[in-house]
């Protein structure tokens, strides 16, 4: 469970990114976070990733208080999260298999575990036949699938997606969302930051709308009510 209690975030520049945010996200939920550029969506994800610290308030992720978490526990905490980005952030000099295996290697997984879990994960995202391809040989949708496979390989409890369909056409966007929905149905909490009206309206999931750092709506089966 993710809980944010009266969370405020003001950057050193004086920019108030989030104001008095209160959210509770239950285990296994699928949540969209929408809002204009600069509304605080990405800051919210950064707070959950513990990339930045809240100025005030309390953030609890599976009963762990992020504000009181010592720095040395941060890597372990992050292993419980998966993260995907709009620009995929794949390693261009490594093939699909190595990009996914990379996520396991850097946390010190055994060679055997890597050999077993990477092909299974690539099958799950529908890329088992392209394991030798390099990112530049793949379409945008395929690259995002690789990124999803990399985010899921360490079996995270929560998957955070920052504009995962921002660089994709409508068809590929829906394919990626279907994949995320599938991941969610297997029990992973999914939080997606997006601008896409079409996706939000079609998925009919919980939608939290931010505006200038505050929550202006939180609907259980919401649609895109906010205009950019």
């Amino acid at each position: 469970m993710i809980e944010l209690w009266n969370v405020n975030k003001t950057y050193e520049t004086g920019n108030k990114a989030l104001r008095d945010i209160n959210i509770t996200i239950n285990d296994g939920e699928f949540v969209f976070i929408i809002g204009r550029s600069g509304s605080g969506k990405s800051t919210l994800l950064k707070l959950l990733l513990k990339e930045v610290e809240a100025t005030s308030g309390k953030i609890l992720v599976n009963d762990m208080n992020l504000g009181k978490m010592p720095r040395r526990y941060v890597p372990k905490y992050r292993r419980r999260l998966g993260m995907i980005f709009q620009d995929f952030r794949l390693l261009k000099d490594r093939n699909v298999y190595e990009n996914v295996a990379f996520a396991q290697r850097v946390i010190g997984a055994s060679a055997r575990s890597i050999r077993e879990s990477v092909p299974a994960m690539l099958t799950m995202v529908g890329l088992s036949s392209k394991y030798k391809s390099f990112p530049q040989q793949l379409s945008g949708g395929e690259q995002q699938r690789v990124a999803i496979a990399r985010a899921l390989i360490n079996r995270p409890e929560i998957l955070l997606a920052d504009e995962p369909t921002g660089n994709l056409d409508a068809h590929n966007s829906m394919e990626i969302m279907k994949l995320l929905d599938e991941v969610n149905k297997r029990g992973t909490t999914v939080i997606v930051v997006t601008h896409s009206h079409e996706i939000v309206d079609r998925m009919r999931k919980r939608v939290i709308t931010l505006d200038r750092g505050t929550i202006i709506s939180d609907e259980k089966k919401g649609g895109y009510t906010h205009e950019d």
Partner: protein
Amino acid sequence: MRISTFWYCLKQGIHNICRNILFSLASIATISACIFLFCLFFSIVVNVQYVVKNTESTVGITVFFEEGTTAERMNVIGEQIRNRSEVKDIKFKSAEEAWEEMKIDYFGEDKQDLAEGFREDNPLANSASFEIFLNDLIYQDEFVTWLNDIEGIRRINYSSTAAEGMTSINKVIGALSIMIIGVLLAVAIFLISNTISVAAAFRKQENQIMKLIGATNYMIRAPFVVEGILLGLIGAIIPLIAIYYLYRNAVVYVLTKFSILSGLFQFLPVETIFPYMAGTALALGLGIGFFVSFFTIRKHLKV
């Protein structure tokens, strides 16, 4: 650490070196130059120290006794001197032995009959002495002061210039080598640091992903430290190979072409000097590589 993690870090370290090959080569060349000079001065200093030690063993202090000092008193003084820690060796020379030596030096082997007139009257009757050799000439002044306070000693002969000369040669070579190695070390540190910074910039995205995936600081930094260690070790091995053959051939060349020097100097064989030199040079290369990369990556990679 898992073996797979070790191989991963090693592979990434090698990959970093290959990716910035020009910077890596510049770093290796500078470390090589630094360690080559270190080895060169190491050889010189060790050989000079060897020569100095050999020479020191021939520079002694001679102690003469006051007239009428009994043999028992001389023995007591000899025992006092022998018990001093800085004394390496002590030899007693009686008045008779001193005269025997002088006869040979002064009259030569063939004109010994000229000394017959002194048969009953030893001109060196009061010249019984102790010849003392110290472990290190650096203690000579202090030791002579101590001797002066002993009752029954008439005169002390010693060469202060010899001691000062030997110690100053050592000091000059030592200071010079520290200065040159220091400058080269600073350049090597700068270049390795630069190479690691460039590698960190190249891998910025990779490091960011690693951070978000949950890699520990150690895991993110390890490939850079491995890179630094490899640069340091390669930079040490190259000059060691060069110096091994150079030293061996130089000693042979000097001793055969300038055979007159063989009487003045005795060079240590390469087999004697090399293990210490190699150990120190490898430790130096490894140390520079490790510490510079470790601190550089700490500065550039706030994880």
